[in-house]
């Protein structure tokens, strides 16, 4: 009659490590128990709690697409105790993963629409799952536009994928770095994301926007999106907050009456605008 321990993580093998920037890494994780791996399903937008046993757990979205089976990917910056411990893992090491938790981007409802991704720095990983999800089902969507920027060329994540997306004929990719962040070889835009977005002026007709980034970027980008004709219930984002359990029990991640881990992390801006200012 023993009930499953919901806090018990899956044991995962670190299958690949990519150094995105000096302090950002991407891990590809495979399930050590293949049966668990076969049965594992998730949807874009969901997150997990990643363990280094003995150090603790840290919260990141699942950055790979649910269309890719057999593995999940996460991207994180080395910032505190757990992420520092994760960053010192080697290929073949075992870590823990609990998930998938949270709500999802309603991709099914976006069939036939265009998608506009606007993001910066390390806020690209939460949207990357949607980008690949959409690209893997390319015929389901009309135009796909990605506007992505970072402080400097070094700070761009998924550099190889940016190259890949740029080469595809069915994606419009605009990358930018902040003024002063460019290198001699840099061929993309130079300017802040909101400015670059305004210049690119993508159509809002029958388009869903996904906006994710630091508060200052959100603050300056929202007016641009509004000017382009987007309404708040067509702009999606993913929030983050301090988490421990990830399942709405430890009581820590709430914004007003909603738990970011359970009622989020995916919200429309129409919903975000209703939230009290505590995130």
């Amino acid at each position, binding site marked *: 009659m023993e009930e499953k321990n919901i806090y018990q993580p899956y044991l995962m093998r670190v299958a690949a490590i990519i150094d995105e920037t000096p302090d950002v890494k991407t891990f590809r994780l495979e399930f050590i128990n293949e049966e668990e791996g076969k049965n594992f399903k998730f949807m874009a937008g969901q997150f997990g709690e990643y363990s280094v046993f003995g150090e603790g757990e840290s919260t990141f979205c699942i950055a790979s697409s649910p269309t890719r089976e057999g593995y999940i990917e996460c991207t994180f910056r080395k910032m505190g105790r757990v992420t520092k411990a994760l960053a010192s*893992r080697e290929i073949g*090491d075992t870590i823990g993963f609990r998930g998938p938790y949270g709500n999802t981007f309603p991709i099914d409802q976006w069939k036939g629409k265009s998608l506009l991704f606007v993001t910066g720095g390390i806020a690209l990983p939460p949207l990357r799952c949607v980008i690949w999800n959409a690209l893997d089902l390319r015929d389901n969507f009309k135009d796909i536009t990605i506007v992505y920027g970072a402080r400097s060329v070094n700070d761009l994540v998924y550099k190889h994928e940016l190259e890949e997306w740029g080469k595809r004929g069915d994606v419009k990719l605009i990358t930018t770095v902040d003024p002063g962040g460019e290198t001699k070889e840099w061929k993309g835009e130079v300017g802040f994301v909101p400015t670059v977005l305004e210049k690119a002026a993508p159509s809002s007709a029958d388009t869903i926007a996904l906006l994710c980034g630091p508060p200052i970027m959100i603050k300056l980008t929202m007016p641009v999106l509004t000017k382009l004709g987007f309404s708040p219930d067509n702009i999606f984002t993913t929030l983050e907050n301090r988490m421990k359990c990830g399942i709405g*029990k*430890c009581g820590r991640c709430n914004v*007003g*009456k909603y738990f970011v881990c359970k009622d989020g992390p995916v919200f429309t801006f129409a919903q975000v605008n209703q939230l009290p200012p505590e995130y």
Partner: protein
Amino acid sequence: MTDKKIMKKGSLDELIKKLKSGGKRVFAPVEKGGKILFEEVDSASAMAADYVQTTLSAKDVILPRCEEMMRFTTGQGTVSMEKAPDMPPPAVVIGVRPCDARSLAVVNAVYLKDYSDALYKSKIDNTTIIGISCAKCDEYCFCTSVNGNPGDTEGSDILLTEVDGGNYLAEIITEKGKALADSAPELFTAAGGEDKAKHLADVKVQFDVRAVTAKLPGMFDGEVWITQSLRCIGCGTCSYVCPACTCFDIQDETDGNRGVRLRCWDSCGFGIFTLHTSGHNPREVQSQRWRQRIMHKFSYQPDQLQVTGCVGCGRCSRACPVDMNILQHIKEIEAQ
């Protein structure tokens, strides 16, 4: 379904001894150096008498202040999980007040809804609650203002009310309670129409909880949180003595290559409760944290879990080092 019986004076002691010999752990309020805590007892003579409320709640029995979630051994890049420790013997908690018993509705709503928390469920399923009604109250009690009353049966498996002659009226409420009573049938004799109400404390209703819950969403930006929380020193006493507070922390601890993942009590009153690793803190000042406590109990939980997160036991107010009196604060909020 409630069955009414009489437990004669002295039967409680016999019941405790019988339960203990049956391998159960028995917890009851015990007086220890000026405080009243739930401890394991062997007999009724160890039980505290003549008090209104215990210092800490009985929460520790089902939600320990520190418990193991899992054990593991780490190697060179490897991890192996160890078998979970054996379950402790079933528990019987005697002397829980009706307000405390009602807090189970809150704890169950948090821990059993959506994802069922096996760590908690295994404990509550194996715990029988024998409540004792309140013959007296003090100025800190306000159960009747939050939908409770000093003789409420909700949450108890058996509820005892002391009636004339030192006997107890025993209301056997649930299947668990019936199973316990059936294990000692000689101790439960026929009831004779005792008037329970005349043995209960008179707890006056002091505010309209529905009005407070309706009012709170519009008060998020109010000044009242600042003025009320000026003297709050930001400890976790209120959360930890509260039977309805359920927030927790997860901490890994190691000894060489062996480790445990522990769950322990946490409090929204602490400054670092919501602190991000980046240094950003959505609740930077105490007034925001005080607001969270009240909103969580009187607004968010009613909205999301259909249960008020406060049972009016008054422990937080009694224990608070700086006399933050939640009853006074709620009345002030109602009057805003």
